[in-house]
């Protein structure tokens, strides 16, 4: 395993209380594997990736767990060693290509800086390497473009520059935190295509953070689903889309409009909103919004259990004593999740219908009222 994160917890002590931004997260990334992490906004994806990079901003700190990267535990490594790893073995790109590059330096210089931070190269050699890298990420006329300032480039180009910079020292692992969220779909397609190509060419592993299940499905090998600081499900990508186990994953998949869907059908909705990190429900973090919520869900946080290489954190698949249910139980759980979701959707639709009638009536009255 290239990277293996074990029981990682990251806290932010604030005036109003401690925010557990990452709780007990474990997953692994293998050599040249693309692992996607999906989850809603605020679910702790970025904090998790920054924890790996050791770039948490104040007052965040890794509270527990180990981050094993090529045999070194990053949670305990010295700042000096960490610096040696960053940029050389683990590289990272960020969501906002517009702001991730320093506006006052030429892009070439920024890439050169990344190279020379880790390798004893002359400026000239580094410049050549930079041009090479720009070429590799598909920037036309790289010889001229190295002299550009970031503002002279479009978002897509900047993101390519970021990737080029990340690739500067042939890292083993690239953490890409929502690399395409800010980009247009056509540009997003270009960038994702590039990432896939690079993985093939260089064998670098990618930890792809995103909230877009479509991106996951097209790019990743394995998926980790996070909800409220926890991993709720983890599976190989096809497995997850074909057979989502956790009600949250299920809901997520059903709530996105798909091209081949019947448009007349109402979309499935997950009820409510993400809870405030300081006021987490006592038991399962998803319990408030879950259609299959049970008594136990409100009392205990379920464990992550494994079902044929597919991990899930839910009492539908876990006994009250914390053990994985047997296969029948799992099948039942699956069925139940599906059924509950469908029922919920129908109820919501019926509600909407009723309401509509109500309103129409009052409206007619009003109209007359005003006329009179």
């Amino acid at each position, binding site marked *: 395993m290239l990277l293996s994160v074990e029981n990682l917890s990251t806290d932010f002590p604030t005036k109003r209380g401690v925010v557990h931004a990452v709780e007990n997260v474990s997953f692994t990334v293998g050599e040249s594997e693309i692992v996607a992490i999906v989850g809603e906004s*605020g679910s702790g994806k*970025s904090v998790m*990736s920054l924890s790996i990079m050791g770039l948490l*901003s104040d007052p965040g700190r890794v509270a527990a767990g180990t981050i094993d990267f090529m045999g070194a535990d990053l949670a305990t490594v010295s700042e000096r060693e960490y610096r040696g790893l960053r940029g050389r073995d683990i590289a990272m790109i960020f*969501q*906002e290509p517009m702001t991730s590059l320093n506006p006052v330096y030429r892009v070439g210089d920024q890439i050169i800086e990344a190279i020379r931070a880790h390798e004893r190269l002359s400026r000239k050699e580094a410049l050549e390497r930079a041009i090479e890298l720009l070429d590799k990420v598909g920037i036309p006329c790289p010889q001229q473009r190295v002299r550009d300032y970031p503002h002279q480039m479009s978002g897509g180009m900047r993101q390519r520059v970021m990737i080029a910079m990340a690739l500067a020292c042939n890292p083993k692992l690239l953490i890409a935190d929502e690399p395409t*969220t800010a980009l247009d779909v056509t540009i997003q397609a270009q960038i994702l295509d590039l990432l896939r190509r690079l993985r093939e060419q260089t064998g670098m592993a990618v930890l792809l953070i995103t909230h877009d299940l479509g991106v996951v499905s097209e790019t990743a090998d394995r998926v980790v689903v996070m909800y409220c600081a926890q991993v709720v499900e983890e599976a190989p990508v096809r497995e997850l889309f074909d057979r989502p186990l956790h009600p949250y994953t299920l809901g997520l998949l059903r709530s996105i409009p798909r091209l081949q869907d019947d448009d007349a059908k109402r979309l499935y909705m997950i009820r409510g909103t993400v809870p405030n990190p300081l006021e987490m429900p006592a038991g399962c973090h998803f319990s408030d919004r879950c259609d299959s919520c049970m008594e136990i869900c409100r009392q205990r946080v379920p464990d992550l259990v494994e079902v044929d290489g597919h991990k899930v954190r839910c009492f539908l698949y876990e006994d009250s004593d914390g053990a994985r249910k047997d296969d029948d139980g799992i099948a039942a759980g699956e069925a139940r999740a599906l059924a509950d979701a469908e029922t919920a959707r129908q109820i919501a639709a019926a509600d909407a219908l009723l309401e509509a009638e109500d309103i129409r009536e009052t409206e007619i009255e009003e109209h007359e009222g005003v006329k009179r």
Partner: protein
Amino acid sequence: MERSEMVASTVQSASASQAAVRAADSDDAESAVGLGAGGVRAALGPTGVGEREVRESIWKDVATGIISNRASLASGIFIALLALVAIVTKLFPQILPFDPNVQDLSLSLQAPSAAHLFGTDLQGRDIFCRVLVGTQITLSVGVAAVAFSLSAGVLLGAVAGYKGGRVDTIIMRVMDMMLAIPSILLAIAIMAALGPGIEKAVIAIGLVSIPEYARIVRSEILSIKEHDYIAAARVIGDSNFEIVFRHVLPNVMQSIIVRATLGISSAVLDAAALGFLGLGVQPPCAEWGDMLGRGRNDLLRASWLMLYPGLAITLSVLAFNLLGDGIRDGLDPKARKR
């Protein structure tokens, strides 16, 4: 707006030197929520932890800002005390152990003692009493000058910011002109022309700080105009008048309040400077800057003559600064979502 103008306006808005700096310098202790979560999505979900957002009532925010910060709470109390002293000494002058304006040459230049806490001045007047009474002038000049420049500045800034175009250009160019003359020099020239007197000091100090307010209000309005809720108001059919009064001004209020608080501190400083140069109040009126200016002649013999008034000025300016900082934290404009 073209780039060049953007820069020009950054520069100019900064030229309300204190203003810019103070506005920029806010304690962003906790506004860095969802650090990686770019853009709007980060702010989604429920109100994030420790996230400061614009809260409903401005005055409640002001109060929260003040209370949540020990220093500004202390200065709030200090200012309240000053105000109390000013009012009490105005209404019940007999409460003072000595008449601050009546001289007794037999007591000339007494060092601080139990009887005269801060000593006496050349005319044998009790400096403690004079410092206490000085709060009247300090506070009233501060407040009046700010009220004056605030109302003029808000009006001009609002017109310039909301109307835009030529009106904006003309108003702001005039403000530039006023800004190009150091305010203290302008104030001195105005005072020299008008002659000494407290009302004139108010006018001079008020006049010179109009441009600052106009700038701040204008730039605030320009940024508020960008918000969709202004567009929304227009879409639902609000008139300009309604938009300005219902949506724009309430949202500009917070920076005005912060600026006004800090403005009082600079008005107090300016007034003291005028007093120091002998252009302030009429005797025997007690004003700190004036006391300091006069005391300076006897400085070597009686250092208390300038020690206490100077301390009084510094402390009250400090208090207003701290208070302003506190209020600004309460109203942190950075938390406003775009």
